[in-house]
């Protein structure tokens, strides 16, 4: 039960900050940081406990029951969870510290800490879930935190819009997720992981009639359907194509958030979920293939967009999209270990990159356009060097953690048949692109002439220790995680899955190809942005269509606006006016008006002429007599 404290401590911090935030104000971190720190220590404890192959299962309470559905909440810690726990608590802890400096003096200081504490709690609960419902609950909860934190600077219109967009797009994914959960219950009669996992194989043949309602017959494998529906959720949360659009916009949030939520932890929940539900996915090759392809496409598309972005955070954001694609692809190809391994190393170096960006942004007074930066490397040495390490890891440069994980990933992909090999080649290509854009970022931001607004140019200096210390720690982790034997540790959680072992020539070949691609990418960036800065413009003019497409994110947002957002609003407005008011309500009022109209008509009978009245009586008598005569 001790481990229940891992999520509960941040929750406690959240409650204290939520209720007493206005009192604590600038001292809010005094509550939040120790809480996360303690969580981290407990996570280490938990990690060491499961390292030996044990699995912790801590039942909490019965959430509710209805009919034959009973839901018990509990914590489940295996190796996968333990690794995630460490990732979350470490990054969260560092971000907490970083925030002290980053958010210093902001009016929403306490609110910010409260929200990240809540996020930490939710994320921890998410990874420790032992059933689908709990997973979903906290899946949404982290989305909520993301929403709140993206909208932290709600005074900015873009922030508000981005927050809403993030939530709604995620909801689209969660729609599938929810249906998937319902289907799990329909098939297995329970939502607890363990019984579902153990029964998954035996349900492989179960089918479901999709057109049953309409009398048709379209039998679909239930397992495939479950996996695909759940994957829709993952697509939303992990910003896979086509639901990736929210993530770059989410950069409107304060940078620590981008690091914590939109790089290291929350967005990886989708990957985590696929890995966690590996026993289900393993049953359905179709679903696996879909996962892999979507991952691959995301990987490539994200990278192509990142090439041309000018907003420093957006570049990193699209690189996140791309990297998430890598992970998803790996999972889809059965390389869960490699995928999660990359998830962990990516957590470290991407958090590092974001925090580095934050440091830069702080230095240049919240300027995010890298065309107005440049020449920062001397003024901000710590930031610069840690950023370089992060970029190298991202580019998969040898000896960094990113190198090992990406290598493992590509290798496991190569081993997964024809589809895997195709995707692996794409992965190698993408690695080149990755290296290019990450170093484009480095060169443009830190090298060359300073293009900073002269007003602020004089104030640019290195950030205080609370900011730089996390950078250094993350830089260390960005390298160290490559040497800690993480894959072997994770292997215990995926007994059936193939390890990312080295297989002689193939392995070496892939390693070399990936490294080569990285080096070429870095070199290209060097040539284009340091040696001959006019070169990009030429390319731009030459490949105008491609450039524009990339710059405008392949117009996905615009397409969505056209296809979904605008029609929804228009349809709503039109339906309200044309259907609800004009037809339905009018019909209702029409009935009333009809009665009144008949009233007006009938009233005219009452002429006031006495003899008309007598006539009416006579008519009555005539009618009665007629009736007698006829019947």
């Amino acid at each position, binding site marked *: 039960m001790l481990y229940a404290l891992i999520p509960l401590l941040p929750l406690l911090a959240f409650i204290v900050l939520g209720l007493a935030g206005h009192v604590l104000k600038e001292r809010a971190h005094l509550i939040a940081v120790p809480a996360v720190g303690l969580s981290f220590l407990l996570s280490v404890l938990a990690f060491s406990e499961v390292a030996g192959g044990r699995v912790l299962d801590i039942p909490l309470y019965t959430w509710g029951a209805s009919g034959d559905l009973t839901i018990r909440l509990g914590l489940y810690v295996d190796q996968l969870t333990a690794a995630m726990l460490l990732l979350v608590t470490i990054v969260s802890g560092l971000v907490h510290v970083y925030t002290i400096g980053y958010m210093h003096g902001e009016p929403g200081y306490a609110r910010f800490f409260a929200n990240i504490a809540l996020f930490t709690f939710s994320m921890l609960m998410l990874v420790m879930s032992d059933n689908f419902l709990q997973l979903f609950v906290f899946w949404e909860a982290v989305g909520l935190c993301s929403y709140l934190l993206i909208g932290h600077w709600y005074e900015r219109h873009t922030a508000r819009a981005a927050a809403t967009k993030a939530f709604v797009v995620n909801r689209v994914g969660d729609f599938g997720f929810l249906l998937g959960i319902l289907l799990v219950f329909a098939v297995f009669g329970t939502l607890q992981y363990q019984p579902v996992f153990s029964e998954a194989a035996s349900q492989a043949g179960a089918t479901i009639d999709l057109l049953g309602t309409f009398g048709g017959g379209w039998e679909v494998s239930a397992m495939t359907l479950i996996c695909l529906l759940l994957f829709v959720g993952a697509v939303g949360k992990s910003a896979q194509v086509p639901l990736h659009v929210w993530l770059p916009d989410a950069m409107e949030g304060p940078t620590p958030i981008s690091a914590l939520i939109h790089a290291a932890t929350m967005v990886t929940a989708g990957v985590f979920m696929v890995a966690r539900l590996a026993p289900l996915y393993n049953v359905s090759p179709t679903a696996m293939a879909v996962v892999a392809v979507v991952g691959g496409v995301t990987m490539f598309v994200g990278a192509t967009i990142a090439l041309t972005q000018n907003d420093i955070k957006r570049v990193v954001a699209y690189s996140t999209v791309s990297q998430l694609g890598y992970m998803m692809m790996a999972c889809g190809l059965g390389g869960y270990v490699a995928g999660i391994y990359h998830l962990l190393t990516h957590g470290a170096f991407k958090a590092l990159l974001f925090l580095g960006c934050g440091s830069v942004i702080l230095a240049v007074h919240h300027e995010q356009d890298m065309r107005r930066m440049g020449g920062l490397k001397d003024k901000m040495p710590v930031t610069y060097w840690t950023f370089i390490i992060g970029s190298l890891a991202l580019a998969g440069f040898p000896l960094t953690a990113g190198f090992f994980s990406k290598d493992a990933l590509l290798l496991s992909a190569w081993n997964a048949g024809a589809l895997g090999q195709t995707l692996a080649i794409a992965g190698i290509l993408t690695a080149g692109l990755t290296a290019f854009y990450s170093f484009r970022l480095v060169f443009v931001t830190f090298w060359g002439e300073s293009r900073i607004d002269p007003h602020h140019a004089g104030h640019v200096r290195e950030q205080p220790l609370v900011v730089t210390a996390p950078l250094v720690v993350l830089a260390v982790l960005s390298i160290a995680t490559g040497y800690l034997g993480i894959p072997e540790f994770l292997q215990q959680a995926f007994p059936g899955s193939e390890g990312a072992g080295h297989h002689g020539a193939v392995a070496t070949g892939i390693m070399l190809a990936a490294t080569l691609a990285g080096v070429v990418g870095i070199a290209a960036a060097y040539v284009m942005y340091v040696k001959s800065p006019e070169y990009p413009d030429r390319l731009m003019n030459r490949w105008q269509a491609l450039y524009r497409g990339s710059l405008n994110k392949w117009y996905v947002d615009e397409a969505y606006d056209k296809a979904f957002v605008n029609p929804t609003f228009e349809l709503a407005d039109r339906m309200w006016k044309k259907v609800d008011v004009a037809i339905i309500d009018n019909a209702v009022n029409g009935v009333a008006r009809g009665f009144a109209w008949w009233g007006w008509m009938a009233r005219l009978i*009452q002429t006031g002429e006495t003899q008309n009245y007598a006539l009416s*009586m006579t008519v009555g008598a005539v009618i*009665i007599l007629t009736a007698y005569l006829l019947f």
Partner: protein
Amino acid sequence: MMIPLADLVTILPEIIVVSVACLLFVLDPITPSNRKDLLAWMSVAALAVCFIVTAGSMGDRVSAFSDLVVVDGYASFWKLLLYVVSGMTILLSIGYLKEERIDLAEFYGFVLLSLTGMMIMVSGADLLVIYLGIELMSISLYVLAGFKRFEARSIESSAKYFILGAFSSGLLLYGISLIFGAAGSTRLVEIAAAVDARGLDDSLILIALTLVIVGFGFKVAAVPFHMWTPDVYQGAPTSVTAFMAVASKAASFGAFLRVMLEGFGGMKPNWSGLILGVCILTLILGNLVAIVQTNVKRMLAYSSIAHAGYALIGLVVAGWVGTEAGVSAKGVSSMMLYLAVYSFMTLGAFSMVAILRRGGEEGEDLDDFTGLAKRHKGAAFLMLLFMVSLAGIPPTAGFIGKFYLFMAAVNAGLTWLAVVGLIFAAVSAFYYLRIVMVMYMREPSPEQEGETRLALSPTATVVLALAAAGVVIFGIYPWPLVSLTASASLP
């Protein structure tokens, strides 16, 4: 020749009422003008005595005067109701007549004589007696309607009522003459015997029946014989309108039912469908036209037509072919209950119109009720009660009345009739609520604030309180009334 004492005892209430009425005519000239209220109180006291007498002797069927008069539970029920509403009318009139500057003690005399006519109607066992009762009632009402004879509208209402009343009684009388031809007598029992003997579809009786239905249809204001109602109700002094709408209608229904069931009970198939048609027409027309009225008195007149339609449901049930005796009796008792309940709420509503004054006139326009709730909370609340009850919304007596009627209808297999009735109950809610709306939700204009006032005499307060009590008590605890009507039911 000797009149048996028993006969006199049987008609003791009638004797009391008539005596007091004559006394009023005599005492009026010699009473100082400031003591004339005493005469009204005397009338009320007489009614109270009658109430005790009738209530005390209520029970078995007693015939008197060579079986021309019958006093049974049915008759007693109506008489009790009539005493109450007449008493309330008189109490209401005490203040009202002064406001209208027509306070003659003769007024009470006419009310009492009219009441006598009604009492005779409901306990007549011979068409002759019933006819004379109708005439006594009607002639008194002609006079009462024109009581405000310096006002054109009052006298016009009186004239219309008279012409049409005389016309309808001509029709009724001709019908009676044909019945006499068919049965050789005008006694209800002998008519029933003749009907039994002649069977259904006898031409002579059918023609007679047509005219009888027209005659009574006129009295109860059933469509298409209703057309006098709005004009007469609107023009007559309000307390008279209340009396007509309540007492005359109740008595007419009482007599109508007795004639149809005791006289023509053997040929139900010949008339129940007819009454059904009349009933539906009445429901529809009364409610529809009431929607568009802006004069409250006239609206209440149409509403009283509509309520006649509801009451007719009871008659339809009682006459519906194929119903057992028990079901038929339920129809009668539900109609009795309905009219009793109707009396309270309608009297209450008209009383409110009577006491609301604008300048020197009656505040009978819808606008005069504007913002009443601001100035006279209690009055507005009572009006709210009456309106809600008229609309048939629980927990008021109006709901109980409708509930029993619809119970009876469904019991007789006339579910659809209940549905029609309820649909128009919903329609009626519209115009009743409009009064509530203007009272509670509209702001009065400044000049209205100055002009309108409540002429609330103590006696009118008593009337309102009684009516409200009836509406509320019979709504919450209707059992006494229900059991009374059940035991007094006709067949």
